[in-house]
């Protein structure tokens, strides 16, 4: 008898989505699915209102000062590109970390390859945390931006953003935080943490659909437009409007994604972030403890799960991670993510750049039984003869 799929790839995207979120998204889109904020007929105004309401929710959720500085984008990568293209100028310097996803590293690399910017990366310690002092030490007079992930998508470690923010504020350097893995689990208040901008995606722990994310910016941060087009305002002018949020939103926005994101925010606020985090960490602890005595399983940076999101990366001795993922899928109906997780420098640091690793990321809808099935499966895995 086939098993129910045990989905342990929530760090890639949460699945399944709460039915309540899907129902709210579909029904609102069925009701309001016109071009928001473009027409003067009632339905277009109402669709615009729904978008404005979503901006307000996002602003409140992240402690942002101005809902008009909530910029909707396709995902966190898109938002990070908006930020880097809109902020960096030739001669600028950037400080980031080895924990970053390619969504941060590749734009920086792209700019550096063209000779436009330079950057330095702060290391993480053996437990997967970046010391704020390592970031501060790399700030130069021409440092225009510090970019840090809130939670590593490989190690699950939550970085000390408040202290990093304090040090950036002391040096008057804007801090951009990638909250892809933490939003919806670990609260982040931009104002309290001296954060100038955050890039988020909607489809992970905010429980929205894929294709929606955003950039939230402090009013003092002057992010220039890097794409241009129709905005529904200032249409007489050929120059793109400088008014937020339209300055950074060219073209018709993803209304269904925004409605889904809005419903996702309602869902997690109703459920409670602390409750969600507690549940996921309980599962992660069960997994970590269940694997602790397996000498053929090597776990990375999991000796303490304090300041973690529910991500555990490991390898099974002699077993290619891709094969491990295939066996878990076909033989045990367990879905995990293998490879480098688009974060090559983390893998270099933990010594897995040559082979990758297997990532388990339990989510809100996993159970203890799911974790026990994963432990049982891992106990039986072995490499080629």
């Amino acid at each position: 008898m086939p098993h129910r799929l045990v989905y342990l790839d929530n760090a890639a995207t949460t699945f399944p989505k709460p039915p309540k979120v899907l129902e709210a998204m579909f029904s609102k889109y069925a009701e309001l699915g016109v071009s928001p904020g473009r027409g003067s007929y009632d339905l277009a105004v109402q669709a615009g209102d729904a978008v404005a309401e979503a901006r307000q929710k996002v602003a409140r959720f992240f402690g942002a000062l101005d809902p008009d500085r909530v910029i909707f984008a396709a995902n966190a990568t898109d938002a990070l590109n908006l930020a880097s293209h809109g902020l960096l100028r030739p001669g600028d310097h950037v400080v980031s970390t080895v924990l970053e996803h390619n969504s941060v590293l590749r734009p920086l690399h792209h700019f550096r390859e063209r000779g436009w910017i330079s950057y330095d990366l702060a290391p993480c310690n053996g437990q997967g945390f970046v010391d704020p002092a390592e970031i501060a030490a790399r700030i130069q007079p021409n440092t225009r931006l510090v970019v840090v992930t809130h939670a590593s998508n490989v190690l699950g470690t939550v970085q000390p953003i408040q202290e990093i923010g304090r040090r950036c504020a002391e040096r008057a350097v804007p801090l951009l935080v990638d909250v892809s893995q933490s939003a919806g689990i670990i609260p982040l208040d931009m104002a309290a943490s001296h954060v100038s901008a955050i890039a988020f995606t909607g489809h992970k722990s905010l429980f929205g659909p894929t294709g929606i994310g955003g950039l939230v910016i402090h009013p003092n941060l002057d992010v220039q437009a890097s794409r241009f087009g129709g905005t529904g305002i200032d249409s007489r002018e050929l120059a793109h409007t400088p008014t937020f949020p339209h300055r950074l939103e060219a073209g018709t926005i993803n209304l269904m994604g925004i409605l889904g994101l809005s419903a996702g925010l309602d869902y997690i606020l109703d459920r409670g972030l602390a409750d969600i985090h507690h549940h996921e960490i309980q599962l992660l602890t069960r997994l970590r403890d269940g694997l602790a005595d397996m000498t053929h399983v090597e776990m990375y940076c999991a000796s303490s799960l304090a300041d973690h999101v529910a991500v555990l990366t490991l390898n099974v001795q002699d077993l290619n991670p891709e094969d491990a993922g295939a066996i878990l899928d076909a033989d045990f109906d367990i879905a995990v993510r293998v490879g480098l997780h688009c974060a090559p420098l983390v893998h270099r640091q933990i010594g897995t750049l040559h082979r990758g690793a297997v990532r388990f990321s339990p989510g809100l809808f996993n159970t203890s039984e799911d974790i026990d099935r994963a432990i049982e499966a891992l106990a039986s895995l072995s490499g080629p003869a």
Partner: protein
Amino acid sequence: MAEEPSRAAQFPELGRVSRAFAGREIFFDLEGFFWEAKDWDEEIATILTRESGLAELTEIHWKVLRFLREYYFYHGRAPLNRHLKQGTGLNLQALETLFPGGIRLGARRLAGLPNPKSCF
């Protein structure tokens, strides 16, 4: 009889290496996967098998290789994990131990399928 790859025959800028098999020049990527699935034949598979440390391919090995190739050419891609299990009648843990190198670097490579470009 296979000839050793010569450095002069390598094309690192393209990420591929050529080897001669019975007068035929065959290209592989740097992980040893066939550049072109159509270049595969049973004789080359047998040579590569010996190089991988397995003395010979048994009927069960051939069954796996033939299934992989037939599936690939019919569907235009490698089988899903569950199709591989159904099609070979083997669970994937058993398949892993059947080939030196396991599923990806063993069975799939010896079957001449292209290198799966996953998140690497």
